């Protein structure tokens, strides 16, 4: 049973560029959440996708956008990259229709984005 997979593992971009990160959820999961983890910090919630729609959003600018596909995989897009966007981006999947107590988020190993 494949867990949450993210690609690429590491990415280097320059300021002003655009980047797309990809996530495949754990088998059987239909909900994908994205988090940004700056160095030495805990992850911060960016947004969540369920049924191909953005359902919740954290305190991130519109430069951060996403998409969910019919197979539940997801993309995170960041436009006009800033130096401060350098971070580990984590994807987590869960089963949206399960009971609340069982709705656990399983994480991928993340994509390390470096903006130069």
């Amino acid at each position, binding site marked *: 049973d494949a867990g949450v997979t993210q690609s690429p593992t590491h990415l280097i971009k320059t300021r002003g560029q655009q980047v797309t990160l990809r996530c495949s959820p754990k088998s059987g999961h239909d909900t994908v959440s994205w988090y940004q983890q700056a160095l030495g910090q805990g992850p911060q919630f960016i947004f969540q996708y*369920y049924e191909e729609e953005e359902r919740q959003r*954290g305190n991130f600018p519109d430069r951060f956008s996403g998409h969910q596909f019919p197979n539940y995989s997801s993309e995170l897009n960041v436009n006009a990259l800033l130096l401060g966007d350098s971070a580990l981006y984590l994807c987590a999947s869960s089963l949206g229709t399960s009971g609340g107590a069982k709705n*656990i988020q399983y994480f991928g190993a993340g994509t390390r984005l470096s903006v130069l």
Partner: protein
Amino acid sequence: AQTVTQSQPEMSVQEAETVTLSCTYDTSESDYYLFWYKQPPSRQMILVIRQEAYKQQNATENRFSVNFQKAAKSFSLKISDSQLGDAAMYFCAYRRFGYSGGGADGLTFGKGTHLIIQP
């Protein structure tokens, strides 16, 4: 807005001994979930233990147990018989109960505690 505070940036313990990691949180909700996640150098967050706020009994998973004090908004993690493989960053996280349009709510994390295991 909910906040999660981990006041111990780093903790060190001898192998086979017991260590307790602290976490406090702030919320106006009465129903919610609390989690401890472990993040080893491989970067992947691994769920260690979870607690439902409506349950008075403290959760236990093998060598890991929590001390949940709802009135004090405290949620500490105790690791018994520490092993070298327990060395990692540990994050306390909060999620409110219920749904908003489907799917689980986003997690609110603390800044983490770096746990060092001395052989």
